Every structure is written in structure tokens, then in C-alpha cells.
């Protein structure tokens, strides 16, 4: 592994226990890894493997029971709720499975949302950054479309633009293609690969093993532990896969 690259995420023996009634559930049983800048990592695992818990840790939505988590060099474990909110605002871009766009709100306003909680942006800077992010995901012509006037693929691209707008250290995608059909899924994957090519760090949590082929590294979880952590030296091109898909009949 090239140790001279910048470490964006570092987990040191992270454990997370939940109390369910009188029993303690060990969702994470000591997970350690480093993610370097510019990596496109898929985290895979069946349900119950702890991947959601790990995602919450990585997204600073939760703190470890024990162990250390450094995001872009800062320790998250001791942080207060408000401090973590600020950290999420500056360092993380979330993409959710079901888009989570604000209803009856235009694309630009949706993308502006994270910057609304960043007082260093004024209204015009916010709009400018949002438009730039929407251009980056190929929605320059859909700026004023409301969320209910867009297709699933478009909504997910708005969500990706929203994750990009604060120029985060890492983009966290949670089953980002889970609600999309095959063709649209590939379109979104093409976009992720493009962002990867531009040097963005991406973590893509999924249970779909196919997606791992398009990422640069795959971490496999089982029962709260890492079972496999492999570098993918043969990254497939999502664009090619998209081109090879059979054309829809009614086109």
C-alpha cells in the first residue's frame, strides 16, 4: 500500500455495542482500517453484518463504544453532538438510498441545504456553489425543477450534487443505487466513477456484490468484523457496462 498518500479515514479497533433489553449486542467487534484520499471503497455485507453501524460511525452520526475514529485527522470519539454536526457539515457528503430530497423544493434549493448550516456562505455564494455542483452531475438544465418533477435517477443525481456542494473529505453513499433500475443504477455508477476519477474519496455501502467490480477497493464485513479487504486492480468501467446494456424495447 502506498503509505505516502493522505489518510482520510482511520479506524482503530472500533467497537460498538448496543443494549437491547438486558442483552448486549456487539454490532462492531473491533474494526480497523485506513482509507486514503482518492479511494473508491465499497463496504459490503449481509444485513446484520454491522455495515449500517459502520456507516453511522463513518458518518459521525454515532460514536464508538471503544476504539478511535479519525476523520481527516480529527478524533471523533470525544466530540459532542453539535461538534459532530459541524464536522458532518464540513467534511462529509451523504447520499441515501431513497434520495431524501426536500419535498416541493427545487433542485438548487435542495443542493444548497448543507450550506444553509454554514455561516461562511452567503445567499449568492450558496446558489453559485449549488449550481456548480448540479452542473458536475449533469443537471445544469434542471436547476429549478422541483423534486416531485424529477425521475429517480435525476433525484439521486441531485442528492449526489448535495453531497458534493460542501466539497467534503469523503462522500458516503448508502445503497445509493438500491432504489434504481439497472440502467439508472449504471448511470449513477458512471457518475461515481467520474467523481472518483476527479480524485474524490468515496465510500459506497451496499449489499450488491456487482458494484464492488467498479470500485477500487472492497471491504467485506461479517458479524461485526472485517472478513476481507481487497484492492481491486481490475476496475470495470460503468460507462462500458451501460453501453452494453440491451436498449429498452420501447425506445
Amino acid at each position: 500500500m502506498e503509505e505516502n498518500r493522505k489518510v482520510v479515514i482511520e479506524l482503530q479497533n472500533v467497537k460498538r455495542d448496543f443494549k437491547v433489553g438486558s442483552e448486549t449486542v456487539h454490532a462492531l467487534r473491533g474494526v480497523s482500517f485506513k482509507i486514503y484520499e482518492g479511494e473508491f471503497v465499497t463496504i459490503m455485507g449481509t444485513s446484520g453484518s454491522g455495515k449500517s453501524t459502520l456507516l453511522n460511525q463513518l458518518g459521525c452520526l454515532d460514536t464508538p463504544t471503544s476504539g478511535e475514529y479519525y476523520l481527516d485527522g480529527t478524533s471523533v470519539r470525544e466530540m459532542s453532538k453539535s461538534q459532530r454536526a459541524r464536522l458532518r457539515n464540513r467534511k462529509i457528503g451523504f447520499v441515501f438510498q431513497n434520495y431524501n430530497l426536500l419535498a416541493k423544493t427545487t433542485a438548487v434549493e435542495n443542493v444548497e441545504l448543507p450550506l444553509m448550516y454554514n455561516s461562511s456562505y452567503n445567499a449568492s455564494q450558496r446558489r453559485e456553489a449549488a449550481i456548480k455542483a448540479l452542473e458536475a452531475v449533469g443537471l445544469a438544465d434542471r436547476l429549478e425543477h422541483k423534486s416531485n418533477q424529477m425521475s429517480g435517477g435525476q433525484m439521486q443525481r441531485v442528492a449526489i450534487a448535495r453531497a458534493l456542494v460542501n466539497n467534503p473529505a469523503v462522500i458516503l453513499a448508502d445503497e445509493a443505487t438500491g432504489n434504481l433500475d439497472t440502467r439508472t443504477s449504471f448511470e449513477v455508477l458512471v457518475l461515481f466513477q467520474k467523481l472518483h476519477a476527479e480524485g474524490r474519496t468515496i465510500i459506497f455501502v451496499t449489499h450488491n456484490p456487482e458494484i464492488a467490480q467498479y470500485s477500487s477497493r472492497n471491504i467485506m464485513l461479517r458479524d461485526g468484523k472485517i472478513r476481507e479487504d481487497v484492492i481491486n486492480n481490475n476496475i470495470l468501467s460503468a460507462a462500458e457496462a451501460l453501453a452494453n446494456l440491451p436498449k429498452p424495447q420501447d425506445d
Partner: protein
Amino acid sequence: MNFLNLIKIAIKAIRSNRFRSFLSMLGIIIGVAAVIIMMAIGQGSKESVRQNISQMGTNIIMIQPGTDMMRGGVRPDPSSMQTLKLEDYNALLESDLQFVSHMSPEVTASGQCIYGANNTSTTVYGESVEYLDIRQLEVTDGEMFTNDDIKKSSKVCVIGKTVATQLFPDGSDPIGKTIRFKSIPFKVVGVLKSKGYNSFGMDQDNLLIAPYTTVMKRIQAQTYFSSINCSALTEEVTDYAIDELTAKLRALHKLKDFAEDDFTIRSQQEMMDTMSSTMDMITIILVVAAAFSLLVAGIGIMNIMLVSVTERTKEIGLRMSVGARGFDISCQFLIESIMISLTGGIIGVLVGYFASILCSTLFMLPTSIPLWAIVVSFIVCTVIGIGFGYFPARKAAMMDPIEAIRYE
């Protein structure tokens, strides 16, 4: 997150749930409008009472026989009601009172008044000539009787407009006609300018004014007065005038230092204050009743906000994920509830304002909205917004973003 953004978000949230927001506003609108209308009517009546009383003359001082009636007792000794004698009046007239400008003794009698085939029941006031100045009355037709008439106990009178129209329905001139009061003939020498009804609903034009000597001797056959009305030089010296009169009367009645006054002196000012405080009391009761509806409205807002928070759990989760702190979220919901209640307040004030105008034109109720009532309404609405929005806002702020974002 700055304040302006929060307001924008709140407006958006309210607009996207227009009907629901309007319903919860409705409580506030009705509450504020009710308070404003009640205050307007209360304040208006109070002002009109004050105006009425001051129309009668704010510098009027009334001397009544007997000790202060307020203290009660089973039944006052009849002799205690006869303490104001003719001699008192004459002595007061002769002594040079510094602060008293006019004085008129008063003897009254009620009864039937007849002219030809017409009759009316009225009250005759036995007064001196100065009564017109004290009560600020005017004789429009004819003239006031004279001091000479008083000296001679002449059977002359001036009549109020109501008596004139009752006895002379054909509109003929009453001057010079002889009317009968309790079978005693009185020659009408003048007609008083109409004063209309006072705020207690009493017709101020239904009266006869005759020389006090005439009423004392020819109607009542009594030697004492039912009261003596005076006017102070100016409103400001009323209290000095009262002191002066008290001292003089005590000396005349030869009261010892420890003895209580056997008369009572009240000023119009005092009556006005009593009336005002009664009106204030009524206003307060009305406003408190109306204010309870505001409390109910506040609970309504809290209810709607709780629904709104639950409904927007996912949105809260999203906002938290992208960096909203609990504080930002609670501010968002607080501002929303403040905006609902404040908008309701503004509409309520407008509704109350127009309703009170309507009240005064339709029901002839005097109304007046004090500015402070409007200011207080807005403050109360803000307090309601914060007070009843706090719990829902806190509930929103306390949400766990992990659970909130997965909420379906």
C-alpha cells in the same frame, strides 16, 4: 445558520401546509380579536362615561346630608337625612368661600305633570339660579327664573325638552303656558337645551327646574335640602373647595372635633374615578375570559407543531445529517410556531379592529382600541409561539439523526 434562512424555511413550511397552518392560526385570530373587541368596548364605555360625567362639569361638588353612606348600617336615622338646612345654605352664601364659585341647594319631588289632556311623569328640581352654571345647562327658549322668583317662591319653572314634547306634542310654544305638577300650577318661563341620555341610560331632559323655595314650601313642605350642589373655581382646586366647605359646615353644625361629619361631600371627579374603576373591573373580567381562548389557541398550536415534527421526522434527520445542530432544528420549529401565532395575532388585531368599528356603528357601542392593547397582543402572541412551540421544537432537536432519517 442565520436567522433569515430560518424565517424562509418557516414560511415555506407554513405555506406548504396552508390549510393546517390557517386552522391553528384561527385559534389565535379568534382569541386576539376577542381580546381586542372586549378591550375596545371596555375602554370605549369608560371613555364615554368619563366624557358624560365631565359634560356635567368636572368641578361639581355635591354635599349630601348624613354621614358617609358607604358605611351602611341597618337604617339611617331619618333626622340624619335632614342635616342640610336653609340656614346652612344661607350661611354658606354669606361666608366668602375662596374656592367655590357657584352654589345651589336641591330639593326634588317626583310626580305627574299635566297640561291639558297630556301628562308625563317627571321630577321637579328645586334649585337656585346658579344651578345652570353648575350643571352647564342652557335655556334655549325663554329665560331662567330669577332670584326675585326665588325670594317670592313664585310658581314658575323651566322645563326639559322631553317634558316639552310630552306636554306639547303639537309643537306649540310652551313659554307662558301654565302646567300643573301634582295639581300645583307652574308657569313655564323657559325650555332647556337638550342633553340627551347619559351613559346610565337616564333621560337628562325629563325634568322641571323650579325655584327651591317654591318646591320646599309648596310641594314638599320641608325645611331641609336633599343636597347642595356647588362648583369649585376650577377642577384643580376641587379638593381645597371640599376642605373649605367641610370646615364651614362643621362649624355651622357645631360639631366637636371627635364627631363625625353629619354630611357627606363628594366631587364629580371622585364619582368619575369610581365609575372608571368599575368599568376597568368589567373590562378586566371580559379580557381575562377572552384571554383563556388564547391559551386554548396556544395548545392548538402545540398540537399542530407536534404533528408537524412527527411528519417531518425524515426531513429533520436529513437536516441533521448535512450538519444541522439540535439548536438549528429547534430554532426552525420555534420560528415556525412564532410565525403562526404572530401572523394569527396580526390578523386577529385587524379582525378585532374592524369588528369593533362594526360594533360601534351597528350597536352604537362606544369603542376605542388603546395602542398598548395592540402591542401587548403581539407580545402575548410571541410568548405563546415560544411557550407552546418550545416542547415540539425540543422534541425535534432531541431526535437521533440515524433513526430520524430512516423513519417511514
